[in-house]
């Protein structure tokens, strides 16, 4: 109980700064009350209506006209138009133009007024969009996040090919994560080994060099990579100057997937070195001595005794690198170009540019589920190994 009190401030802090914002954001993926709140009576009147019945009855038009005026007075008409436009292009201007006819007075039948102003008001599709958007809970964003769509008849199918981008990005993100993980682990292992074997003073220096990149701003580091890797950068200049490649053959090392992988590997390196190093430090030197005294050649002793004992460190470092690179944002945005864009960038796009927060939240849920399931599988695998 006393122990709990000690961590209570942290728990409260985390609840307010971590759990609450994340969950309130993720909820947006399935909970969208905008239309239901703006047009409660219209949505209610549409409840008994089916698209197969053709143009909805007058009651729907009347309610819609009243609530359109209320929405305008509340100042939320822009948000509503944008929300509807997301489901079908053209809805925003339709609603905006609809606004201009609602001011008429002395009208007894609103249906002909709307239809007269724009033929689209007579189409069942228009009203079915409003009806669907009017439900507070929806799976459509989640479906869209995995490139699925719910059709008119209620079945779920893949989106048309030109609209499938999310799954492709997910696969690319996982592959880039895998590449960064593999490269950084392969590079980190010998470095960790060298530090673990070095004298204490040399080890201190090596560790400082490894950690040096944490002391520099991430932007400065990435810009220095741009200086190195760009078309007229240091690496290409050197290759041309030494005659390895011709002037016209300058390599595209950055603003593509290669750039994301290179800079990502560099950024992950310390995070992989540290856990491997700390595990190596805990392996008593007597194990290797014992193995050689038992007749094993130093290479065999290393491979059969030392290496297996470093696996927990490799597992921890590699999974850290993988999970972090899946959620990678700044680097791909700066050096990824078109082909190096990752999942986080599309989430950022929906948050900042298309302003489709619901889809951004749905995409976040997808990547969260992927990471958690990978982590669970890995965790179980490690535990089985130990037992």
């Amino acid at each position, binding site marked *: 109980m006393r122990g709990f009190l000690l961590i209570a401030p942290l728990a409260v802090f985390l609840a307010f700064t971590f759990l609450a914002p994340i969950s309130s954001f993720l909820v947006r993926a399935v909970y969208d009350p905008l239309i239901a709140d703006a047009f409660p009576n219209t949505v209610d009147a549409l409840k008994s209506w089916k698209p197969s019945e053709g143009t909805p009855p007058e009651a729907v038009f009347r309610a819609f006209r009243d609530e359109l005026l209320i929405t305008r007075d509340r100042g939320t008409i822009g948000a509503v138009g944008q929300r509807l436009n997301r489901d079908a292009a053209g809805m925003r201007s339709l609603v905006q133009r609809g606004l201009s006819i609602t001011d008429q007075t002395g009208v007894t039948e609103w249906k002909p007024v709307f239809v007269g102003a724009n033929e689209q008001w007579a189409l069942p599709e228009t009203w079915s969009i409003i009806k669907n958007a009017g439900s507070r809970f929806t799976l459509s964003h989640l479906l869209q996040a995995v490139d699925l769509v719910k059709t008119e008849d209620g079945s779920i199918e893949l989106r048309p090919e030109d609209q499938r981008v999310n799954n492709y990005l997910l696969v690319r993100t996982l592959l880039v994560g895998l590449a960064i993980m593999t490269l950084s682990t392969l590079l980190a292992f010998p470095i960790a080994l060298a530090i673990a074997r070095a004298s204490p003073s040399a080890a201190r220096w090596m560790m400082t060099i490894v950690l040096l990149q944490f002391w520099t701003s991430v932007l400065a580091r990435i810009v220095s990579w741009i200086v190195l890797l760009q078309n007229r950068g240091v690496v290409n200049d050197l290759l041309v100057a030494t005659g390895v490649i011709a002037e016209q053959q300058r390599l595209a090392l950055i603003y593509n997937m290669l750039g994301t992988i290179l800079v990502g590997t560099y950024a992950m390196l310390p995070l992989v070195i540290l856990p491997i190093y700390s595990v190596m430090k805990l392996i008593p030197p*007597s194990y290797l*001595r014992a193995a050689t*005294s038992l007749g094993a050649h*130093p290479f065999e002793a290393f491979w059969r005794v030392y290496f297996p004992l470093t696996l927990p460190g490799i597992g921890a470092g590699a999974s850290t690198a993988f999970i972090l690179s899946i959620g990678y944002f700044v680097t791909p945005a700066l050096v990824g170009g078109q082909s190096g864009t990752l999942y986080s960038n599309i989430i950022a796009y929906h948050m900042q540019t298309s302003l489709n927060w619901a889809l951004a939240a749905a995409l976040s849920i997808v990547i969260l589920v992927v990471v958690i399931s990978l982590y669970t599988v890995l965790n179980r695998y490690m535990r089985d190994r130990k037992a």
Partner: protein
Amino acid sequence: MTEELNPFVRFEQISKTYDGDTLVIEDLDLDIMRGEFLTLLGPSGSGKTTALMMLAGFESPTSGRILVEGRPIHHVPPYKREIGVVFQNYALFPHLTIAENLSFPLSVRRWPAADIKSAVDQALDMVQLGKMAGRKPNQLSGGQQQRVALARALIFQPRLVLMDEPLGALDKNLREEMQNEIRTLHGNLGINVVYVTHDQSEALTMSTRVAVFKGGTIQQLSSARDLYEYPANLFVANFIGENNSVQGKVMSTADGCCTVELDDGQLARGQSVSASAANGNNATLSVRPERIAINPPDDYDTLLQGTVTEVVYHGDHFRVTLRGSGSNTYQSKVANTGGQSDIEPGQPIRFGWRTSDCRCFMGDVGC
């Protein structure tokens, strides 16, 4: 060639320094005979483990050479030395099962699988751990791990086995049990054992010979009995068993016997150890507590007057603290054969020893 008469292992003028300045081992000469159980005994930092590690090949001597069966081994890497090593913390491989640990030395020698299996089964039987074959080392008790480490060091049939404080982590009962097992194994297998310990009772009970280390040099190399009965110097006398050190001045020397005047003017006699005993020199007499007799018979040639200052009951014996009329105090162990209850603190008393039970070293206690 008289190969059989040569020592099995010979250290020749071995010196070792890590920093080029202080010598961890200084001009070490040591012969280990065939089939011997030799213990290197000494306080920590005395160089005993370094000597062992040089033999195993994990350290190389700064100067001098080590010969095994007459051949120098400094160019032989550890994995080709065919020397079994039992490490202080056992060094069992934690990711391998007991059976895999035992088969490790055989599989690196590319033995056929069937031979490995029968050798491992046999080794498991030897240490009575057949049921534990599939367990990991951390699922075994300290004593069981110790047995596995021993079996692993023996399974490839080395002729020389080194043990670096192998029983240090065990409790007292288990340690005595394991001492017996190791001694029995040594007798049965006819192997050479070089054993490092700082536990003198372990050294005395197990070894053919004991080498007492201090400051990188061997102070004395002899059987356990000689070590206790005839220590070569004051360090050995104090390090092995309990000892009374009594200071005085040499009065006369005759027939290998020194007569020493104690600080209270009484005379005591002991065997002269160094040839340089000259009259008037400072000397330290060394006598074991159980050899100081209280109310001794008249044929004892050292008879002293003193006072009892403390009597402590130990069950099978009493520990009596005595004081001469000067500052010298004496510890005496009196066997509890009944009827000693008359010794009480404050009581004046006569005590003494036989000359053959006392060693007379030149110099002060501190040296």
